[in-house]
């Protein structure tokens, strides 16, 4: 079920992000979701892309990258949707390391991405509670 996220490490300096994703941008790969965590020294760019392997190859050897499994949950397009998901995780004492949200035109919906330690357990919990999880294929399509 889990969605594969591509993370890259860049210096927090002028032009580094565009330089890093130049290759991807010139291909037919679509960046479906993007989030950046940063410090004064560096940025960690997290992306969900339409073609993971191709994107990784296009980054080249000089860019540090890694693939992580994350949970993508579909949200109702109305107030309080995110809160419901977070409450469910909190009650189960599942710690979320970071989160970001995106919308997909194709799926006509909003998603929240959750980075957790135990992807499988989190997915099971959310599915049991009736939340709709996105698959890797759905997101990439």
């Amino acid at each position, binding site marked *: 079920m889990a969605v594969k*996220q591509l*993370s890259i*490490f*860049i*210096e927090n300096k002028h032009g580094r992000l565009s330089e890093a994703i130049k290759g991807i941008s010139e291909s037919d790969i679509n960046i479906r979701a993007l989030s950046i*965590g*940063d*410090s004064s*020294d*560096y940025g*960690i760019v*997290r992306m969900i892309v339409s073609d993971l392997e191709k994107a990784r190859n296009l980054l080249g050897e*000089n*860019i*540090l990258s*890694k693939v*992580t499994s994350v949970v993508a949950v579909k949200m109702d397009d109305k107030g309080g949707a995110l809160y419901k998901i977070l409450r469910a995780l909190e009650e189960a004492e599942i710690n979320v*390391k*970071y989160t970001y949200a995106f919308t997909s035109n194709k799926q006509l919906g909003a998603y929240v991405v959750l*980075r957790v330690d135990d992807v499988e357990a989190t997915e099971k919990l959310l599915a049991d509670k009736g939340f709709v999880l996105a698959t890797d294929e759905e997101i990439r399509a």
Partner: protein
Amino acid sequence: MPQYYQPEIETASRDEIVKIQNEKLVKQVRHVYDNVAYYRDLMDKKGVKPEDIQSIDDIHKLPFLKKDDLRECYPYGLLATDLKNCVRIQSTSGTTGKRVVAFYTQHDIDLWEECCARAIVAAGGTNEDVVQVCYGYGLFTGGPGLNGGSHKVGCLTLPMSSGNTERQIQFMMDLNATILCCTPSYAAFIAESLKERGYNPGDNKLKAGIFGAEPWTEEMRHSIEEGLGIKAYDIYGLTETSGPGVAFECSEQSGMHINEDHFYAEIINPDTGEVLPEGEKGELVFTALDKEAFPLLRYRTRDICVLTRGKCSCGRTHVKMCKPMGRSDDMLIIRGVNVFPSQIETVLLNEGYSPNYMIYVDRKNNTDTLDIDVELSPDRFSDNVADMQEMEKKLAAAMRTMLGIGPKIHLVPPKTIQRSEGKAVRVVDNRKLH
């Protein structure tokens, strides 16, 4: 006001000084040869016997001691007397693996403190003075040395140790400190802190400062003198020879008189070991002439320096050394602490990082800063910022344990630190110290 702590010796004629040095050296070489197997081996290997040393002119025949020898001999290998005769241990700040420990008999402590007393009197100190010592106390020689010297002169001594600027200022103002002893950068920091609290340079009772343990410039001297309304004097020393007080500045404030009745100085070519004539620039080498417990002969300090014997207006006859002009090794002195790039490399390797790094040293607001760029290896990269920050914190803590000072760690992508073909440039020191 007395000008000298020990006038007979501080103003002795050249002949008298040489006579003292001749006698002490012959005796000291015999003492070391008989009691220190490590140095005896070095002498035997060089084919030198104690009988070959008849006067100070023969000193060039003796083998050198280097920092590596001291590490190899840790802890007791260079001890020249029974431990039961020793009363004190001092140690260098953060060195790779094994620290250098120095042993002192009561005689050694007395001669060291007398040297510091000479420095305090040269800075105008008398038994009417209140001496505020804010060098670190403990294994570091700064605090204990000046503290002992201050007692010998009969000054009222404030053993403040380092840090806690608020308290330093309170004691300085409330107890009318007249002489301040600390690192020059801390003196500048105190001056700034006083200004921030609305004090003028004339509001304190300070008249002089004795500042050492790190390199400083004439510009810095002027700014400290102005900021505190004092005369600022330099002092030199190293744990290996005893501590601060090996050499000190007089009223002329141009070069430091070496206490050459206790410490014989030579300048050598660091590459060949050849002794250079007076006035030439080279590496400073010290021989402790009458220390009992830890008497180093021909110890290479790695400080680049010039010696001069010109007449000094203060009346002292002892040879003068200039402020060290650099190092013949890659040692950095950061906030008064000796740091070798190799120590930083050791920590990186121990913690599983690549040995590609860059060290940046700077001085901001009169405080030295140490920044280290470290390449992040693929297996350590985490998509979570908190994990990465935890990693940086752990590395900085390991550095602090090894170096004695905490650096700021900057993780950079792999292969971004320049590889060099010859000798790698690992250090950028942006301080203007020499």
